[in-house]
């Protein structure tokens, strides 16, 4: 945080992120909320860039702004029309409490951490050049167990999704025969 450019960038990006995060809560239209969420994600990616974490930044754009948002779009699309507004909910109070709890946790950790581990010349020495290689080596070296657990978890999620869809298909096949009977009746009424 020694260069003015970085400082300006940090504050601008923080403002974008915070404002759009608040707008996510305030927007009545669910699609609008989604757009603000994407902007918040992009602001986060910008914040990562100011930290020279280019890999994380790009991954943030790729996964959150690119994929998760589209997933949410699909979720909104597939829900019935009635629930498409970002309206009042029964869970306002518990939600607020949970949010407050998480915020205080993050704040506490932030205050408690010794941030000045690298500073000045020590910071300049730390090589931020090739984060991908470093991240990859850490993932497959020091944190390989966590990595493997995560991948197994994802695999199970994938299998679970397939199983769920197959269940649905069998059901709908049974429904289909009934539906065709209905269809025949409907055609009769039309004629």
């Amino acid at each position, binding site marked *: 945080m020694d260069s003015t450019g970085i400082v300006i960038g940090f504050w601008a990006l923080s403002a974008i992120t915070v404002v759009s995060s608040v707008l996510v809560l305030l927007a009545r239209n669910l699609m609008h909320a989604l*757009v603000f969420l994407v902007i918040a994600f992009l602001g986060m990616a910008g914040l990562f860039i100011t930290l020279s974490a280019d890999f994380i930044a790009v991954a943030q754009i790729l996964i959150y702004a690119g994929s998760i948002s*589209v997933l949410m779009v699909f979720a909104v699309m597939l829900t019935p029309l009635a629930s498409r507004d970002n309206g009042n909910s029964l869970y306002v109070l518990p939600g607020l409490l949970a949010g407050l709890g998480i915020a205080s946790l993050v704040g506490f950790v932030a205050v408690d951490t010794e941030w000045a581990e690298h500073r000045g010349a020590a910071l300049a020495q730390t090589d931020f050049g090739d984060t991908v290689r470093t991240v990859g080596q850490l993932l497959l070296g020091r944190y390989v167990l966590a990595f493997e657990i995560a991948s197994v978890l994802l695999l199970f999620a994938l299998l679970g999704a397939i199983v769920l869809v197959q269940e649905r298909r069998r059901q709908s096949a049974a429904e289909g025969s009934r539906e065709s009977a209905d269809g025949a009746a409907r055609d009769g009424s039309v004629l």
Partner: protein
Amino acid sequence: MTDQPMRPPRPATPMLRQIQDRPGLKEMALGVPFGLKVIGGILGLGVLAVMALVGYLVVDGRLDGQWYDIRDLGFAVDGLRTWLGDQGVDHRITWIITGALGALGIMSVLGGWLLIGSWVERRVLAKFQIRMGPNRTGPFGLLQPIADAIKLMTKEVVIPRGADRFLYFIPPVLIFIPAMLGWAPIPWAPNMAYLDINVGVLYVIAISSIGVLGVFLAGWSSNNHYSLLGAMRTVAMMISYEIPISLALLSVVLLTQTMSLSEIVAWQGHYHVWMIMLIPFAAFAFLFASTAEINRTPNDIGEAESEIVAGFYTEYSGMKAGLFMGVELGHAILVGALMATFFLGGYTLFGLEEWVPGYLILASKIGAVYFLFVWLRGTLPRFRLDQLMGYAWKFLIPLGILQAFIVAIEASVFARVDAPALITLGAFAVVNIAVTVVLIRFWADRLGYAPSQHATKPVLTDALGGLKAAERIRST
């Protein structure tokens, strides 16, 4: 055959007469005035002299690394930076100036290409379709894109009733910005990459994934069923086809051991090999999936004209629609650039880049891929949505995973075995091509596709009849 008096030959229509009267190349060459010929000759000799001088300088090595080295404009920018530093300009301002200069360069090249590209596409397509193409506005219709742009800009932008005005405004911008940003990491010469980040490949994929949201919002906010159908189709297709693209690029990254685009090109230049020769399946998967991502024939189901009018941008008018169309063209060129960078050796051409500016080589490669796109558009019908999705999930993705696996083994062999690159890479190429052929063959059999399903001809009959005759014919 008839006793009627001979009629004079039918007068040709004005169009036909114009085609008939058009002078051939020879007449045009002979018809040039003498003065022009002399000037042209002098100019030609001058160009030859300049080329000879450049050749001498290149051989001499006096050009290497100088700011006036036109083979690599990166040196010029470096020189400018040093000069500004010498003038006592603050380094931040220097970076801003050079950054703006680079962005301006890329944008103007891109803008010019968008204009010329639309003209080229229409003319080439016209040649495929035995028509003339635009030929009225300016010489050879060259001013047609400008006329189109003026028309689009002066048209009224209609916002349909019931549209979500806020969301309706965003998509043209949201889709245009990634199309511009995607150009940043492309290396035009060894020192001519605007944003030479070491996660270039990821950057490209990430940038392309933002456009999906723009497409979806366009379809959603228009309050039109055609738009919504087009948006759903496009989004479903983009999500599916991002996986084959990632797998194809993963193969490239595994082999080159880097995610930086300029290093990938440098790798290809160093070994004098194009990626498409080493991993043809990845190149094909990338090209095919890209046509799906950018809505080009045969995968243009997102804006299938004969089905859903213009897809997700049906309701857009004026320059907003113009932006969508421009982005479509820009995407085609961008994919050309990426294809050239990843699989066709980028700015390198087997040593010719020492003599010819690398950006010209890259531009001609982009042009070649773009021509391929136009060719496909002029030739192929469109897939159906389910066929296209099936193609991605049942064919490209499984084979892409297998290909990436094989390349991973090859990459580790390449890193460990200390043999001449010609032998190892040659062996990889042979193995990959053989595996690709075998895999495609096997997979086609698995999926029940028989190449022997050739077109059948109708039955010719002399008999007449009704249902019984029909059943007799069908049973034969």
